[in-house]
């Protein structure tokens, strides 16, 4: 029986084959242009056999497409079935957490998006966990999930931990310090649907993306580093160190498994590996507010580790 099997499995593009193609194949041995659905009622054994044949044929073509190109779910999936999990790793964010939560809830409710927010607190000493518990009471534990850890264990492991508890099929990663504004999330979602992208990345360097709170020196370093990265790695994305992205859940899982670096370089490596695995990347310009109050600083240590990471990626990918 030909059925549109659920899109949750990223199997071969069986459900992307339009029905009329199936009927044409069946026509040769069945009566008229009746579709396979009708054949079920008439107990037309040929129809069932043909459908099995079609399914296996498409499975084999899907497999023969090779391991490099990953099959994507079809675009026509109902958006009511999509759920977006936001992973928020936090450390000492007891001031910003309520604000970012309010903004997230506002953006999601205004666009009627099905969402959940997973707060991964790494044992913050400033009471972030208590604030998170209060927020859970206010917004409901179906929307806000608390999944804390005992101590600071790093971003990659925070994502792994978060994904284990995520029930959505898309995952959004972002910073909890108000530098990323949740109002861009509906734009990410729109962009993702537009191009059926595996990853949508927020970029500060293209379109009307930009930054607030950076002095000239910081801007020069940032643009210089980005230029070198583009020349050496040719990644196909304009902003590699940004951490405001939307991923398909399975894509994020796969990439984290493959990545080995830490810090800035971790984000860069994710994009480079995504390119290697032939995932598609879409971009949305975002505004990055680096500290609403005060100045942002970039130390020499960070620059050195960035360059080391960049050269490692250059030599190993």
């Amino acid at each position: 029986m030909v059925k549109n099997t659920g899109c949750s499995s990223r199997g071969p593009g069986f459900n992307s084959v339009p029905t009329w193609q199936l009927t044409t194949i069946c026509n040769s041995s069945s009566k008229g242009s009746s579709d396979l659905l009708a054949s079920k009622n008439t107990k037309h054994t040929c129809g069932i056999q043909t459908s099995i044949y079609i399914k296996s044929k498409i499975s084999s073509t899907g497999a023969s497409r090779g391991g490099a190109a990953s099959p994507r779910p079809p675009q026509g999936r109902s958006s009511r079935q999509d759920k977006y999990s936001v992973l928020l790793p936090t450390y000492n964010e007891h001031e910003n957490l309520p604000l970012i939560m309010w903004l997230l809830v506002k953006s999601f409710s205004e666009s009627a998006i099905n969402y959940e927010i997973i707060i991964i607190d790494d044992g913050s000493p400033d009471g972030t966990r208590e604030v998170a518990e209060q927020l859970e009471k206010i917004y409901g534990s179906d929307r806000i999930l608390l999944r804390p850890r005992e101590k600071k264990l790093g971003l990659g492991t925070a994502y792994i931990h978060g994904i284990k508890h995520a029930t959505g099929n898309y995952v959004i990663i972002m910073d909890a310090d108000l530098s990323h504004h949740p109002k861009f999330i509906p734009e990410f979602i729109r962009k993702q649907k537009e191009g059926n992208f595996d990853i949508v990345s927020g970029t500060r360097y293209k379109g009307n993306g930009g930054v607030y709170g950076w002095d000239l020196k910081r801007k020069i370093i940032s643009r210089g580093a980005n230029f070198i990265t583009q020349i050496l790695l040719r990644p196909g994305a304009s902003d590699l160190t940004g951490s405001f992205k939307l991923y398909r859940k399975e894509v994020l899982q796969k990439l984290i498994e493959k990545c080995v670096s830490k810090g800035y370089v971790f984000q860069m490596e994710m994009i480079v590996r995504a390119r290697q695995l032939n995932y598609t990347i879409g971009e949305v310009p975002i505004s990055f507010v680096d500290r609403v109050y005060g100045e942002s600083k970039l130390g020499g240590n960070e620059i050195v580790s960035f360059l080391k990471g960049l050269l490692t990626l250059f030599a190993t990918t």
Partner: protein
Amino acid sequence: MLKLTQWLWGLGLLDSAWAALTMGALDLELSFPCQEVLWPLPAYLLVSAGCYALGIVGYSVATFHDCEDAVRELQSQILEAQADLTRNGLCF
């Protein structure tokens, strides 16, 4: 192929072509003006590439968008959020 390998191949190819032409290994009778240009060509290309890079970085720094409105919007939203959350019982 690794990016490093691609670069090494590309540079190696260009270098060997230049060396072959300047040393006369291909037995080509190049006119004197051609030879004059060929000899300093790598240095010239390096300097041009450096200037190009500086130009690009300079241009992109100059056109780096400063999001003034984003900050104002964020600051007003922060006040709104604080008021709303206190109403809902959050203790800051």
